[in-house]
């Protein structure tokens, strides 16, 4: 007789009590997630179908039918895509150097990742407004180096926005990649080389597939954070680059149009859920 059969009947008092204890342990967290997260989001979905005249699709028609708001949605996506792409191009090679670093150098490099991660987003965005002013350090350095002659206008341009966003969301990209690269067994690459693979082939056929889980996690995090960023566009570019996030804030805080704001919120939420679902699917797929 197997052990499983011996431990039957299933509904023994001990199993019951353990299960009840487990349910009791998760109950407070369940109440918070259900009551203060899931239910309000469902309610928001409901509000997005309501306006002054009752049930309606008008909010979505306004959001998805007007060229202006399609441009706003594109602005959000563009911010997310550019930030994610640039952050990835910097992070991926840097993660390999970080994984090779030892001793005090590794501590120093990790500190430069964690300190900005722990620092306030508002403080960092404020720092970029100082750095990028026309009489700011970046301009004066470029002039001193002879690269430009007159100060160029950087603050309140898309360049400023992307530089600030990459700066703020970079740690979210590099940390998951670093966590995977640090565990990478260098013997795989050596084996590939022994079997006659060129460095390029080794990279694309061995290293890249092995580090893919870290890339997926980093891209998903950096994109979902930058596509919905609010403080960064508000401080670094302002009114002329409206995004879904700034549209939501305006609808609630200034225009008092909760239905329209909710519809914009649902669109932003749908983008975030799509990214999460896609990354979960990609990281489950067998190699």
């Amino acid at each position, binding site marked *: 007789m197997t052990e499983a059969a011996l431990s039957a009947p299933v509904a023994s008092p001990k199993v019951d009590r353990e299960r009840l204890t487990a349910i009791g342990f*998760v109950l407070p967290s*369940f109440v918070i997630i259900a009551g203060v997260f899931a239910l309000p989001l469902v309610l928001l979905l409901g509000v997005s179908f309501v306006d002054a005249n009752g049930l309606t699709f008008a909010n979505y028609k306004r959001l998805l039918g007007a060229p202006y708001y399609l441009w706003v949605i594109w602005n959000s996506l563009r911010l997310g895509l550019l930030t994610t792409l640039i952050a990835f191009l910097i992070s991926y090679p840097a993660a390999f150097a970080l994984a090779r670093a030892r001793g005090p150098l590794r501590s120093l*490099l*990790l500190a430069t990742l964690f300190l900005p991660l722990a620092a306030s987003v508002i403080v960092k965005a404020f720092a970029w407004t100082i*750095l990028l002013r026309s009489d700011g350090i970046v301009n004066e350095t470029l002039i001193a180096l002879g690269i430009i002659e007159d100060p160029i206008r950087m603050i309140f341009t898309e360049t400023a926005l992307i530089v600030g966003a990459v700066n703020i969301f970079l740690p979210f990209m590099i940390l998951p990649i670093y966590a995977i690269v*640090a565990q990478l067994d260098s013997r795989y690459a050596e084996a590939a080389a022994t079997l006659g693979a060129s460095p390029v082939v080794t990279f694309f056929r061995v290293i890249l597939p092995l580090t893919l889980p870290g890339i997926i996690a980093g891209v998903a995090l950096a994109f979902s954070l930058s596509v919905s960023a609010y403080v960064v566009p508000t401080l670094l570019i302002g009114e002329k680059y409206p995004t879904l*996030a700034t549209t939501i*804030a305006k609808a*609630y805080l200034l225009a008092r149009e909760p239905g329209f704001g909710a519809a914009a919120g649902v669109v932003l939420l749908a983008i975030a859920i799509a990214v999460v679902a896609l990354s979960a699917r990609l990281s489950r797929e067998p190699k």
Partner: protein
Amino acid sequence: MTRAAIIVCWVMAIGLALFLIAPLLVIAAASFSPTPVFDLPLTGASTRWYGKIGRLDGFWPSLLLSLEIALFSTAISLVCGTLAAIAIARGKLPGANVFATALVSPLMMPGLVLGIALLQGFRAVGFTAPWATLLVAHLVITLPYVARTMISGLARFDFTLIEAARTLGCTYPGSVLRVMVPALAPSFLIAGIFSFLASFDNYPVSIFLADVRTKTLPIRMLQYIEEAPDPTLAALSTLILAGTVILLFVSDRVVGLHRMAGTSD
């Protein structure tokens, strides 16, 4: 790796380190600016802006409010999140994986959307007291950090150690206190620090729940920056940064930064 690839990796890593740290150094330098404009490089040094922080309009109530909300929400989340993580790690909970995903899912959701959803939700049930709504809302901000850290911390904990301690004559509460608590202390500290910082720095959720008299520090700071940015703000930012540095330094001494990066060595 080829030599060229290694050089590219190092150039990127050093560039990245400088790029990430630059805004923090600039804020610190600007806080000592001798003039009201941010004259960099500095032509002198002045500490007078630090003295002016306390006179910023509405500064003290906002600082106190942010500290209260961050401390209380972190404390509640540490208790709830750790209990949930224990139940998930023990494996006696039906649907544990789904629930674990649900617990950390607010991390991936746009903060602003959560903010308006909570505003609608609280209004619908007539829950409008700003302090209490902020606290309840910040539970959703802090709980995912605690759950994520404690679930991965407990995944490495061997629950049979508690049984072993009991076999050796320890009482059940005694074995939890002397075996489980010390083993989980590093995870607990990391969870606490990150959830405190997440709450203390939150803007997108708080902005929809605050009113004229109840404004958290990030809301106040954004308002100062938009109205009249001067080195006083840089001084305030520098103090917040200094506090963060101390927190990280202490946690590095206690548990090591590389553990936060998710590597085990």
